[in-house]
């Protein structure tokens, strides 16, 4: 694994604009960065990322099954009791999920270590799925990288297959898509999924999360024209949905949710200590445990993470040498876990994080984020990768 500096494509910003990638620059700071790429060997990708991703995914699925059959484990994960049946039912019925992303600390040498799962509302999907792919094709075409260069990326193709599979099992072949108002990045991510859904032959109408309605007497949540929403993709976390005014209606109404309710089990950092308990000393896992109520300050070599947080918020870490780093945030009211600190590889001034995508049950691609800090956050740049 190398970080290779490279010429940018001359017209990439115009292309980004044309292809709906309006968040390549966020608040004046670059988000998409193609002045460098991360280089992997095929062996590194297949042996160290792809295979462990599928193995970990299967371990997670086994753990979901276990949690679904245990009220004690549901409780340990702070999942509200009124959701337990919905979670169990969606799992037992085999309701398919769409996607997820595992974040790894991986240096090119030794096993990749799972830092966390993003199995409910993973983003950086558009960047990884299409824009990175276009970059590779054009970089080859323009002679910027060797002709035999490749990329671990069939993300969009697998999403197409998954959405076609799901579409066939939905009445009216219709899947509504939703995200909150006033967020350009999330709207674009959802737009991208709608795009793929349409290519897969689905009807894919959009509704903002805030506009989802409840009509007395209707078995489903309703859209703005008061038509039933029979199936709904949400880019909004299960733990928040459940806490809100309409949350209690989720198990009562017949609307099918994507990700399905059973994803609540995996969108929770409490899954990390459970994985470690279930598969201790697994080469791709880091030691992790549930923080005790009276537990003292962070000791060197450990990281503290809330059950529920997004984009690195409220994460605190102390390196083996005792250097402390943290990211501020609002997620302070859920329980915490502690996970052994494992340094991310450093390339020059950048720490690189490997995001490994899972669609359905397949590992199908990677996206690399880099940051000068040790904690990856929403401002961390997306840098393309190539297999050479």
């Amino acid at each position, binding site marked *: 694994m190398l970080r290779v500096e490279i010429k940018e494509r001359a017209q990439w910003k115009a292309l980004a604009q*044309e*292809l709906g990638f309006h968040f390549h620059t966020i608040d004046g700071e670059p988000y998409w960065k193609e002045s460098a790429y991360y280089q992997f060997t095929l062996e590194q990708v297949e042996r160290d990322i792809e295979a462990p991703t599928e193995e970990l995914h299967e371990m997670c*699925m086994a753990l979901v099954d276990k949690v679904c059959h245990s009220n004690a484990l549901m409780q340990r994960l702070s999942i509200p009791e009124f959701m337990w049946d919905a979670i169990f039912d969606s*799992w*037992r*019925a*085999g309701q398919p999920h769409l996607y997820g992303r595992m974040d790894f600390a991986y240096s090119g040498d030794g096993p990749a270590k799972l830092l966390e799962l993003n199995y*409910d*509302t993973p983003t950086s999907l558009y960047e990884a799925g299409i824009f990175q*792919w276009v970059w590779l*094709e054009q970089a080859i*075409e323009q002679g910027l990288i060797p*002709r035999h260069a*490749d*990329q671990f990326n*069939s993300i969009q193709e*697998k999403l*197409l*297959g998954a959405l*076609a*599979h799901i579409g066939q*099992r*939905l*009445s009216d072949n219709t899947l509504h898509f939703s995200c*909150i*108002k*006033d*967020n350009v*990045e999330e709207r674009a*991510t959802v737009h991208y999924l*709608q795009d793929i859904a*349409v290519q*897969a*032959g689905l009807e894919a109408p959009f509704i*903002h*999360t805030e*506009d*989802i*309605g409840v*009509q*007395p*007497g209707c078995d489903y949540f*309703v859209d703005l024209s008061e038509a039933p929403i029979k*199936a709904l993709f949400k880019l909004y*976390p299960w733990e*928040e949905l459940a806490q*809100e005014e309409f949350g209690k*209606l989720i198990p*009562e109404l*017949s609307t*099918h949710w994507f990700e399905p309710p059973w994803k609540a089990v995996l969108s929770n950092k409490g899954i990390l200590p459970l994985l470690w308990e279930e598969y201790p000393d697994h080469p791709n896992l880091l030691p992790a445990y549930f923080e005790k109520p009276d537990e003292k300050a962070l000791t060197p070599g450990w990281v503290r993470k809330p059950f529920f947080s*997004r*984009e690195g918020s409220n994460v605190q870490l102390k390196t083996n040498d005792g250097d402390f780093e943290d990211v501020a945030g*609002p*997620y302070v009211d859920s329980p915490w876990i502690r996970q052994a600190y494992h340094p991310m590889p450093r390339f020059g001034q950048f720490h690189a994080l490997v995001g490994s995508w899972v*669609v*359905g*049950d*397949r590992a199908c691609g990677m996206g690399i984020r880099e940051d000068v800090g040790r904690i990856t956050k929403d401002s961390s740049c997306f840098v393309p990768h190539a*297999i050479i």
Partner: protein
Amino acid sequence: MNQHDNHLPSRKRSARLSLALMGAGAFTLTGCGQPEEVTDVRFDSPRSYQSVEECVEANVYTQSACEESYEASIKEVPRFDSLEACEAEHGEGACVAPTEEQAQAATGGGGGGGGWFMPALMGYMVGNMMSRTSRGATSQGLYQEPVYRNRQNQGNWNAATNQASQRVNQRQQTMRTSAMQNRQATQRSGFGSRSSARGGWGS
């Protein structure tokens, strides 16, 4: 059977991707070294199996995908009125009478029965075949399920055909009754009120 080989080295990325909605107009980019024609784009190399059992065993496709493609391939097998006519085309010893099951599958279960011959089925293809339409790439009905594994501990979820469970029905009946008594306008803003660290929920 090798007619689907594309003579390209296997690679870790898709050969061709499109955008149908995003950006100005439809966008399609073909990877370098790919043929230019825009019909029948293939992604996954289709795999061949001798039987539905072998297909399911391989744990690549779902059982229904295995069954559906088996049935589809049976329907496409050429039929001959006599063993001689079949062997004339496919070679001596290469033809058989269909089993009862095969005959039924071939005729869509709508009677007809046997009385004909076909080349022995050497295996059938399951793969992720895509075709192009004016709306972009569309999966062909049969070959689109390589993404999910079969899980023994789960059902075969299908919201289009499955009836809601009894329990849900009862609950909804109660809700309907109470709703009739207290008819109200649609309520909204019951979701999306929580604020995140940066005004978004992706991760």
